[in-house]
């Protein structure tokens, strides 16, 4: 997932900014507000999707996403239908809420799996070094040398278009990227004095890994979990945009866009609205991840 490039960009940028930043400046205050807005947006999106999942269209603002409405074929956004209507008059807002169910569920599950597996790989490789490290590095290099989308399309076509397969394919992307980050972070932590001290005191290595190294790698891992979630949402969206993600009739964000683009001149809102939601969600996830990365950055400043 060559968001490796992106990760490098993020990382070296935050390194540069940690040196240049002036915490008492007005910029920091503005950034705090933006941070709150981003978190608020994420909470809003997740809770609306979750509410739609639990209560279905019994909620006042939701309708049946497949409900045909003769009076509003291809209608643009209105007060009653805030995101407009699809070609049979279906309510696009309800479709977006239902589509978020699959998109966000896949992204969350994939990130969780990626953190557990990739994180463990990175920790072991970075702390034990030696053979484990060479092996993990080889696996990472092999997995990263196929472009992300190509790999996912490949796996989805040779297996089936079920949610399990999509999750499996996307997890294969998340693992090497996260393992790489965690390994680099572990290398840094393992070099610090408290780890050396514990080693000299004769604490068992497995215990050091669990009690000293892991908690210190966690902040980086959590920050990158947000970034990964954003990336996975994009890749899953692309996949369903190309018609290769979960099969119909399940609605996803990408699928609404793919449906809207066919009759683009009539239904530009079917592309614009889900596109805007994806953009804002990914932007918030990236922003939150980026800010957390900066906040968790200790750099022995307190010494």
């Amino acid at each position: 997932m060559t968001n490796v490039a992106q990760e490098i960009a993020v990382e070296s940028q935050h390194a540069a900014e940690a040196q240049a930043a002036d915490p008492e400046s007005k910029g920091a205050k503005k950034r705090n507000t933006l941070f709150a807005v981003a978190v608020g947006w994420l909470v809003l999106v997740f809770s609306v999707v979750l509410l739609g999942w639990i209560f279905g269209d019994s909620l006042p603002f939701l309708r049946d996403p497949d409900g045909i409405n003769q009076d509003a074929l291809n209608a643009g956004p209105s007060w009653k239908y805030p995101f407009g209507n699809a070609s049979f008059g279906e309510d696009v807002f309800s479709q977006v809420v239902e589509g978020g169910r699959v998109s966000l569920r896949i992204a969350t599950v994939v990130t969780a799996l990626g953190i557990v597996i990739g994180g463990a790989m990175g920790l072991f490789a970075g702390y034990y070094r030696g053979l484990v490290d060479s092996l993990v590095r080889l696996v990472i290099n092999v997995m990263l040398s196929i472009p992300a989308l190509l790999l996912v399309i490949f796996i989805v076509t040779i297996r089936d278009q079920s949610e399990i397969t999509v999750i499996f394919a996307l997890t294969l992307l998340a693992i090497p990227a996260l393992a790489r980050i965690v390994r680099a972070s572990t290398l840094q932590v393992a070099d610090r004095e408290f780890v050396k001290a514990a080693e000299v005191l004769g604490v068992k290595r497995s215990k050091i890994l669990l009690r000293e190294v892991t908690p210190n790698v966690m902040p980086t891992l959590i920050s990158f979990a947000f970034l990964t979630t954003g990336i996975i949402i994009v890749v899953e969206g692309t996949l369903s945009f190309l018609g290769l993600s979960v099969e119909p009739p399940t609605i996803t964000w990408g699928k609404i866009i793919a449906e809207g683009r066919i009759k683009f001149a009539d239904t530009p809102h079917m592309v614009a609205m889900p596109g805007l939601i994806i953009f804002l969600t990914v932007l918030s996830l990236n922003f939150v991840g980026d800010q957390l990365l900066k906040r968790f950055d200790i750099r022995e400043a307190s010494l």
Partner: protein
Amino acid sequence: MILVLVLLVVLALVAWIVYAAGPKFALKRLGGAVLVLVLVTFGVSAMLSFTSGEESTRQALEDLGVSRNAQPCVTALGTGASVENVNQCVDDRNLDDNVVVQYAKWAKQIVVDRDLGLAFYKNGEKLSDTMEQRLPRTAWLFLYSQLTALLLAIPLGIWSAYQAGRGSGRLPKWVLPAGVGVLLLIGIFGGFRLTSLFALIIAAAAVYSIFAGGRLADNNTNFLAFALLSIPVFVLGETLRYAFAIERDIYQLTGYQPWSAGAGEHIKSIWLPALVLGLAATPVYLRLLRADMIQNLQQDFVSVAKAKGMSNTHILLRHVLRPSTVTLITVLGLNIAQLVNGAIVVEFIYDLDGMGSYLIAAFARREFFAVQTIVALVAALFIFTNTLIDVLYTAVDPRVKADDDR
């Protein structure tokens, strides 16, 4: 013919690497690259052999008198294919062999026989012919998009990094909200579309940043890049397709024109996809360059240069940009993968018949032999470029070699 040429170029480069980086180091890196390439292609091959479908389909195929593993062939030939044809196809593709034999036969065909196989099994089109026809389109797309990205990212990155350390603004604070407010009023009463309005507001912010300068400008540029980074390529592509090809008639979706049709026609047929792909890559380069240059600007040699009375332009371009170029090239190499992802999407959106749309067609028709070859070629391109950059890096900066373990 082309393959021989490519092989010659590769050999020349390998020779140069060995010469530049020393045989031991070059061997280590090249060996690693070859190992990764073999593992990737083998992994793909192994995954393919697990695809023969469910047990019920396999049983049904056996009942029909063909091999149990014939499912890919049945998909490729269509349901009307005769038993002989399917059996012939199974034979051709070695579907009955085990993973290792399949892989060995595939590798032998590619490397020893220099035969890439068929693009579409049904009509017997050769993959090398398809590539000859389609690869230029993707290659031009890549080239133009990277040029666009660099043309946008390098000046903006330098400017942004320069402004980051400066005091901002002679412009009073109220200019930006006032300007946006005036634009909004014009927009509402002038009947502008929402999209144009949005573009106008961004333009206003950009113009304001340029005149204000300083950290504010840097922050604004950085945030715009950050936002651009968060737009998925397919959303960006569809939005621009709507704006330029559907709502207005600025870009015609008439398909690709080669150089032989005239430079104007050629550019006209490809500029929008290239712009989309370029815009997707710009923020990556911009943010990286900016961060790297800010770090460089804090080095002592910059103060020395300044004390010697060199001009800011000279310092920025000759002393600060130069070390950053190395980082930029590394990321250019790493970004190839992202470019391939983008090409698949962009070619799908703009109906550009390049390798990306071929891949999607090939996947849809289960042309796994061809897909395997293409995946291997892409992986080879990626691995080779990055190894090359890696070694180049060493030639330029010996510290990398010493730091090899990390």
